[in-house]
């Protein structure tokens, strides 16, 4: 679903973004400029600006609405005086992550990396870290889809070398 352009927002310049699967998204300029990748597309290319479609090859349209929503809200949080209460930001962030599968979280991290926005990347990587906190080695492997390429002997040796870090951990 593309972001709707209402009649009242004619003053705000819009930029069209094209997701990996070809879907177009019309985005208010300041929101689009939150993404370094979009910003750098226009650097030294200012005349062409308004009508050009910015291709975002690594971002699927599935995640675009959520990502744009994040930029919109967080840029508003940053601008507001006095700053919004911590609970409000927390509530938004929690709602953002709710119902996102591990798979979707990984895809969005890749997208945030491609779009080159520190704030979103920091937020998502922290969310990923929170999901693997206090989890067993097996769980973390499954979470990231990591294939264990150690032999049992190698793994035992590495565990022994870092014994202190495994101390008191319940193994499954």
């Amino acid at each position: 679903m593309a972001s709707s352009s209402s009649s009242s927002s004619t003053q705000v310049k819009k930029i069209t973004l094209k997701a990996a699967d070809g879907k177009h998204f019309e985005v208010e300029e300041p929101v689009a400029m939150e993404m370094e990748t979009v910003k750098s597309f226009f650097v030294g290319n200012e005349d062409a600006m308004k009508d050009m479609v910015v291709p975002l090859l690594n971002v699927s349209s599935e995640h675009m609405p959520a990502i744009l929503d994040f930029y919109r809200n967080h840029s508003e949080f940053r601008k507001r005086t006095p700053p919004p209460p911590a609970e409000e930001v927390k509530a938004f962030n929690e709602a953002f992550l709710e119902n996102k599968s591990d798979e979707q979280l990984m895809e969005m991290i890749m997208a945030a990396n491609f779009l080159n926005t520190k704030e979103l990347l920091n937020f998502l990587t922290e969310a990923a870290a929170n999901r693997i906190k206090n989890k067993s080695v097996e769980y973390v492997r499954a979470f990231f889809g990591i294939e264990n390429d150690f032999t049992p002997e190698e793994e035992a040796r590495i565990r022994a070398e870092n014994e202190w870090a495994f101390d008191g951990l319940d193994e499954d």
Partner: protein
Amino acid sequence: MDRISELPDFIIHHIISYLSTQEATRTCVLSKRWNHLQTSFPILDFDLIYFAEKDLTTGTTERKTYNINKFIRFVDASLQRFCEAKVSLQKFRLSMEVFDGEGVASLLEKWVELAVSNEVKELDLNVQTTDNRAHSLPGTMVEELDFNVRTNKDRMYTLPGTLFSAKFVTTLKLSGCNLEQSSAHTTIRFRSLKKLVLNAVHIDEQMVSKFISECPLLEDLFLGICGHCKRIRVSHAPNLKILTVNGSSSSFCDFDLTVHDVESIEIVAPSLQQCTVIDVDRLSVIDMVGCADLKYFNLTGVKILVQEFHKLILKFPLLEKLIVKCCVLESISLSSNRLKELQVLHCSHLRVIDIDAPSLLTFSYEFHGNPATSINVPKPCSWKVGLSPGWQYRNLIWLDSIRNFLKLPHEIEELRISISVPGMDSLKLDKLKKNPPSLPREVRNLTIAVGDVHPSNYAIWLDCLLWICCPRILSMKLFGGQSSIEFIRALLRVNSVSFFANNSTVNLCNSDVNCLPPFLAPPRSSLTALCNGIVTESRRSRTNLVEICHDGAAGGLCDGISCNHDGITMEQNRPLRQNLDGCTTKL
């Protein structure tokens, strides 16, 4: 396919940076790629406490012994491996206790040198000197011995000179070291340093001045000093924004307090925004001439005279937040157009508060015993009041004085009452009721912090407190094994529940849920039933929400409750976060 294999290394490092040190280390066993990523992870955090050995005989962790040799081998190997990865070091933290600072000096020198040559940005060294003999001595002797060794600067670890050439370091934290000798003749080259924390270090006046004048970018300075430092002078610090002078961190490490404590502080810092002075007992002079930009000022535990205080405050025309805590002032009178927040906490001599501040948004006032006799604060600001009975007061008289205090014509947003006095001999509601009647004062949020009170007295305390004020939200904080179930029972019994205002809420915070003795810890089902009971009961009395909160450590007991009733929620503390700012850069 391997989902993570698409992620670049620096993103994996980023994710790892939000984990605890142990968790981060454990990722080395996931796969060969993760094992390799570990060696170039630019945050190196070494703490001897991770190498504590379990005492198999008692199973306690009270007196820990550490496997120092294992620790040293691990640090050494990790650092070597990291150097081979040829990336710049974001953070190096080392925290350890040594028997004799000089004994490990050569090793530490090597590590610091490696960190510096890898362009370390954040450096945090905590090297405490302790006495091995302490562990074989009983009780009080240990304390004394430990104390003596910590204070003996000759036994303290002296930092190597290479440290002072760390030109990439932006944050430097040093604890427990001796800086007097190491750097007397060294040139300091902290050209990038923005934040400096000196905690419990031996340092003299000249060194403090040298640090300040040789770090042109310094923005944030924390001084927790022990040593021959009677005067602290902060000048030639054009970029300094935050300054903290903390005497309480020095008192534990210095044996002869009367000789070494700071007596005067002089600050000339044109960019200074925040200044905090804590527990500098002998301080007689605070001179802050060139700090007209100051917005935040915190004076805690400082024996400053009334005239001095008022003279000082006049120098900060832009002040927005002022905290005065545990000071011996008899009066505070301020006039400011900018002041937004004022906290006056536990100033036991205080009799007069006179504030003329039209922009004031919050006024926090906490006291033991009796309140100040004259309080004049601009009306439209929110009040946060915390109070507890002083030891010398009879409870009934105290409650009456609180009742009078609450007659002030102000909206009270938060009222926190701490009760911890056992023996409620004279505390009877009907006695309180004999006083001239008046409606209970309406407050938005009443928090009752319960310390050493017998559960049989909960009901009477609640009764009395709800007689003098009626909260829209009632929260309880129970400490030291106080029983939450008894409190709920008491609340159900109390007549005053009918005094609750419309749309009241009840919070129950118990930080020790899991510490309850087994006979007090109710089965989950009965606690749930009680909670449902209180919800029903409070609905009848127009209170429509019950919240049970407890700290993260507690788990278990309350878990089941959160989902049983939509009116009951639970809060948990968020875990600590480690931050990796910026990504790995190749040397």
